[in-house]
């Protein structure tokens, strides 16, 4: 009965009605299905990272007190940031500035010159106004960082704070890891017998807990009881304790970090080297190019975009460093190896929650600005060129 009724109904309607309905229903269900694929992930990211981020931004401007059964939050404006940048926490956060050494002057002048040259070049190259404003802002930010780094590191009586310490860890660590990773990856692709062994071995440190790496290195670098004791004695450092020397401790952290993360660079660059097109290389070899020229003029440009990506990835992760300095040196001696994340954690532990959030906000701004500048000025262009 009903079928007859509907078919009669259908006959009365203009042709194509049913197919239109079907298309509409199909479209709706397609929308629902496609939404079902992505919504769980989006909701999770919203609730565990985006939303907390906004709360954390708010907490940075607040005084948070622990009370029974929760927190008491007052808005106090910029007080936390004032404490970090000019108040009582300045020496820990920004460091103590000293009078510049000649080398410091040289670095400042060279750095500012480089920035100015980049700006002028961009202006001459016909970059749009928005681009120029963006670059100018980046230059101001970079100049401020440079100023702080030089005044605390290359100055008499200067002492770096957590910002500069973090930057030192990130820059030296990532540079070392990239250089070592690229060199090792190149050597492994030479196709020497036994390369399978090297590939597996070089990967291992990456899998080891940073906490474990920290203990390993404090064992290894014990100048008295550690396995390298004969070596330390031979160079006259038998009774020296790196843990009591600011630079000794920093170097220990950088060495541990490099040991752990070189494999990451190695493995991605290895895959990049192996994945490159062999034809241009063969052509160049036929034309009589030597190994060095092939490396410089063909291989390096071919893996350049991947190299920039992997550097970006490490850069982002390196800014978050806490486990290694916390376990290896507890941020000491003094605050010599205290990273920004570690500072935020120490403030949290002493229930200074608003300050902790403010420090974390500063770290976030620093990482974001550096990542955005890096992506826009370097990587996007390189990827577009490739």
């Amino acid at each position, binding site marked *: 009965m009903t079928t007859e009724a509907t078919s009669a109904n259908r006959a009365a309607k203009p042709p194509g009605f049913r197919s239109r309905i079907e298309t509409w229903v199909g479209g709706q269900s397609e929308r629902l299905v496609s939404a079902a694929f992505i919504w769980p992930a989006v909701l999770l990211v919203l609730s565990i990272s985006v939303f907390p*981020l906004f709360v954390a931004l708010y907490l940075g401007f607040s005084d948070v007190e622990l009370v029974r059964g929760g927190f008491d939050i007052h808005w106090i404006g910029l007080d936390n940031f004032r404490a970090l940048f000019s108040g009582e926490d300045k020496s820990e956060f920004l460091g103590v500035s000293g009078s510049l050494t000649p080398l410091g002057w040289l670095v400042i002048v060279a750095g500012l010159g480089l920035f100015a040259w980049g700006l002028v070049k961009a202006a001459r190259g016909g970059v749009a106004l928005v681009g120029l404003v963006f670059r100018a802002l980046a230059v101001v930010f970079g100049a401020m960082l440079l100023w702080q780094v030089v005044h605390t590191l290359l100055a008499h009586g200067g002492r770096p704070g957590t910002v500069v310490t973090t930057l030192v860890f990130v820059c030296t660590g990532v540079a070392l890891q990239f250089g070592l990773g690229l060199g090792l990856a190149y050597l492994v692709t030479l196709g020497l017998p036994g390369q399978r062994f090297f590939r597996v071995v070089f990967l291992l440190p990456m899998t080891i*807990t940073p906490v474990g790496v920290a203990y390993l290195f404090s064992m290894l670098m014990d100048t008295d009881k550690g396995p390298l004791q004969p070596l330390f004695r031979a160079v006259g450092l038998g009774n020296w304790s790196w843990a009591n020397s600011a630079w000794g401790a920093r170097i220990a952290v950088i060495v541990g970090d490099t040991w752990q993360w070189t494999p990451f660079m190695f493995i991605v660059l*290895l895959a990049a080297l192996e994945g490159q097109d062999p034809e241009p*290389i063969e052509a160049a070899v036929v034309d009589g190019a030597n190994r060095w020229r092939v490396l410089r003029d063909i291989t390096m440009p071919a893996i350049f975009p991947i190299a920039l990506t992997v550097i970006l990835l490490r850069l982002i992760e390196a800014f978050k460093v806490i486990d290694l300095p*916390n376990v290896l040196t507890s941020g000491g001696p003094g605050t010599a190896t205290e990273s920004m994340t570690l500072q935020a954690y120490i403030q949290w532990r002493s229930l200074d929650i608003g300050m902790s959030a403010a420090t974390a906000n500063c770290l976030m701004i620093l990482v974001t600005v550096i990542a955005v500048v890096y992506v826009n000025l370097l990587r996007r262009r390189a990827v577009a060129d490739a």
Partner: protein
Amino acid sequence: MTRPLARRSTRDISPRAKLLAYLVLGFWSLVVLFPLYWLVVTSFKVPIQVFDGPKYIPWGDFKPTLDNWRYIFGPLRNDTLRPYENSVIVTAFSSTFALLLGSSAAYGLARFHYQPKLGTIGLVFGCFVLGAGAVLLGVPLPVAVAAAIAAFLLLAKLLIGRFRRTISNRDIAFWIISQRILPPVAVVIPIYVFFQNLHLLDTRTALVITYTAANLPIVVWLMRDYFNTIPLELDQAAAIDGAGRFRVFRTIMLPLSVPGLVAVFLLVFVFAWNEYLLALFLTSANAQTMPITVAAQNATRGPQWWYMSVLIMIMIAPVIALAIALERRISRGLLVGAVKA
């Protein structure tokens, strides 16, 4: 593709360069392996053998003993096994969830065209913030959630038609991936408060949820590019045969991308297994994971290298085994993402 290149290279190398290459490779192998060797050796020493200066060779320099292992698995059994169990459960569940949610989002981003209106996004966001603000101000959670949903539905009817600008898949993908830039320390305090309100502090559930969210961006990033390399014709052929989207995803896409999934799983597994900061904030005793337990050793007992070595060894053993077994797949899986994004 790599074979001819590799063979040619070996032939071209002069013996001197070869020797040099082996020296460098050998040196770095030593740098990598010696600390691990020292770890193993130390775990079989008694305290006096550690404090008497370096002893390198078991049976030669010192007499190895199983005392430390017996101690860790005997009297300290509960202190060790519980965090270990926590680590295993939290890592396994969070990696699996991250892989499931992440790869389905990645599939969506690779295969559908999303055109969310900017207005809708702003609205969702605004209601979210309002609800959250209400919770912070002391409104009970269910009431706040209900109010936020009601506000959303009401305003959606009124406002959505007015804003027609949309964003693309690229923007969504970039937004998800960019979450990785966020330092965890910047969001951990609100997460702490959040779980405190839900009475989930110091539970495995809290860690599983947080780790899943933290690792999601990596999965989306790498898997989206992996799915993009699989030809669209396969989906279409299956769709013509009458398979729905979920079936296509489950029976065609997932099996085809096993190599990528394995690589990403290993990566996410290692991140979750070794995670320190979030566990430091979110756990105290019950849900403590291995990194926290190991890190706490120094504080509670001073540097007892011999016990610490045992703990570190049992902690890194599973990951090292996984890494050795899956070495080839990792580099390939990582490459797909690194080239494209």
